[in-house]
């Protein structure tokens, strides 16, 4: 990279210039602190907001003058994420160390007691562990099913053939359904009296068929609905990788009479690995949060309670805000370990080849 002019030197700390972000930051913190202490919360909120904007402007000026493009480009995204996600997350992390219920005014510092309670308290811990093992089971089943079905569908659509475009959109449609409607309609399909599934089974075996009356059936019903909805997501990402493989590689392989499996392993797989990884990552994260289908299909009955649904009950229905926060941070810890493992394995593979 070449640059025609040398970036300007950093401003002196005391200089009153528009790009002196350090001075702006300190002034902002002092003024906001005074405002929060002395003024009503509504006014203080807006003063703090204005101060944050001032610091942001100073930092932007600084970045422009010093050609600090990376920071400049990333800043808006970080700002939105900070306000809407990271700040609320830190807030609830803080709440997890207090005894707080959203329907009461009192708040009391309890240290790690919430964490100890959800991990060791006889009653609560038992529910939590049951919900956690169920969630792990759903993650394994749904993600495995989605990867396999999505992959097979992608293989099917990887060739050019007449009407491909119109058939592809049919397979993509389940992903576009609202979960509320899809979930409610699956209760209808599975319904013992009116449902199409029970009707077919009744005609075939002559006996009453109830899918959701035991754990295996309930899990199968939920996994089927979830896999059906989200396999197209995996399919689309894998398909994108498959169509990007240069054709000449296959032609060369055909001349050398390379076996089908080896062709797949050495030619196809390297092209889809990145996208497969992205699909796996996002589907695992989403599967960990599975709640809506469980709520709609079983309401947690037949031992299908998941950790995310359990959390909704604790935090929303029982108003145990801080206990819910503690559970969710333990859950976040597990998801972070899992995704880091994924990313580590993915990177090692890439470097290994």
């Amino acid at each position, binding site marked *: *990279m070449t640059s*025609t002019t040398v970036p300007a030197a950093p401003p002196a700390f005391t200089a009153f210039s528009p790009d002196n972000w350090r001075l702006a930051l300190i002034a902002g913190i002092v003024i906001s602190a005074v405002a929060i202490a002395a003024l009503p919360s509504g006014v203080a909120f807006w003063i703090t907001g204005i101060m944050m904007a001032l610091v942001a402007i100073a930092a932007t000026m600084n970045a422009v003058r010093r050609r600090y*493009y*990376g*920071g400049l*480009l*990333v800043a*808006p*995204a970080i700002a*939105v*994420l900070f*306000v*809407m996600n*990271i700040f*609320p*997350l830190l*807030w*609830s992390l803080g*709440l997890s160390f207090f005894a707080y219920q959203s329907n009461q005014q009192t708040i009391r510092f309890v240290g790690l007691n919430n964490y100890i309670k959800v991990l060791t308290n006889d009653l609560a811990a038992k529910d939590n562990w049951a919900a956690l093992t169920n969630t792990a089971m759903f993650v394994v089943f749904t993600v495995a099913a989605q990867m396999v079905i999505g992959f097979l*569908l992608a293989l099917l659509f990887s*060739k050019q*053939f*007449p*009407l491909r*475009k119109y*058939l*592809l*959109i*049919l397979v993509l*449609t*389940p*992903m*576009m*359904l*609202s*979960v509320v409607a899809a979930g409610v*309609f699956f209760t209808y*399909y599975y319904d013992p*009296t009116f449902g*199409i599934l029970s009707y077919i089974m009744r005609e075939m075996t002559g006996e009453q068929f109830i899918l959701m009356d035991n754990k295996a059936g309930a899990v199968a019903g939920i996994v089927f609905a979830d896999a059906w909805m989200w396999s197209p997501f995996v399919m689309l990402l894998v398909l*994108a*990788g498959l*169509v*990007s493989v240069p054709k000449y590689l296959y*032609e060369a392989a*055909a001349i050398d009479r390379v076996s089908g499996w080896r062709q797949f392993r050495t030619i196809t797989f390297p*092209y889809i690995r*990145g*996208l497969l990884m992205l699909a796996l990552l996002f589907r695992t994260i989403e599967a960990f*949060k599975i709640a809506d289908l469980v709520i709609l299909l079983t309401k947690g009955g037949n031992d299908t309670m998941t950790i995310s649904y359990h959390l909704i009950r604790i*935090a*929303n229905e029982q108003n145990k*805000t801080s206990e819910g926060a503690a559970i*969710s941070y333990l*859950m*976040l810890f597990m998801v*972070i370990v899992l*995704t*880091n493992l994924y*990313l580590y394995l993915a990177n090692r593979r890439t470097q290994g080849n």
Partner: protein
Amino acid sequence: MVDKVSIWEALGFRKASGVGEAGWGYTLIVAIVSFIYFIPVLMIIFMAIKPQDVALSVPPTLSPTSLFGLIPDAYVFSPTLENFTSVFSRSMTAGGAPEDTGFDRYFFNSIVIATVSVMLALVIGTLAAFGFSRYPLKGNDTYLFIILTTRMLPAIVVIIPVILMFRVAGLSGSYIGIILLYTAFNLAFTIWMMKSFFDELSLDVEDAARIDGSSEIKVFFKICLPQVVAGLAATFVFGLILTWNEFLFALLLSGTDTRTVPVAMNQAVSSGGRGTDWTLLAAIETLFLIPVFLVTFFLQNHLLRGVTFGTVKR
């Protein structure tokens, strides 16, 4: 190799070599698989045009036509458009006069909120992805991972602080609040997806342009962006589908004026204590499906070509 055309291939079945174009025989196989996959959606659409009295009949009615006598009469129903009009106007009390349900407003809200927030996330996220890809910061991977973690926690954990924050800022029940929240909600996926596209582009062209004296802004708009147009389309479609159908945030944060269709759908179907109104739910869902279906259909070519572009190896 000797080219011997078997009867199998003459019928349109090609050997699975991954090369070239398959024929109509292959189309038939894919059509059968696709149709089976589509059946649950088809049943929702058919439910939307069923008369209410046969909605839950046993055996289930399966088709609006007998397909020239192919399907026995017991499984055929006569289609009606009544359910669609009752989405927008129906009597709320038994025997009462038809009232406006406000669904036109909810559809408008859904369209505005989803479009604006996905576009906003796309602009901000693409800039950030370009930054992460071309000008790595100190601890670049850590930033990316923190961004990913914002997608890991269930919405319920973020929601209580967000509700309190919105209340203080006077944003509860406003368009700005929910749009900003959805923008943040879409950013993680947008950044990760667009970064993987930028990462795969060849750097040679960009460097050549820089040596010729192009500014960084020109390099981004004239060289990089045109190459990832299709990636933008793919990200837009995924983001739109997720935002369009989002339920929990919308339920807890949208006011009566900014209510989106999934929330209204849930209320319309479960209110009244008469159990689920199947034909009404199906009609709402069918109408609600049309916009995303059309967007996906028209962006489909970009979707496949785009991601293709992204994965061309350096």
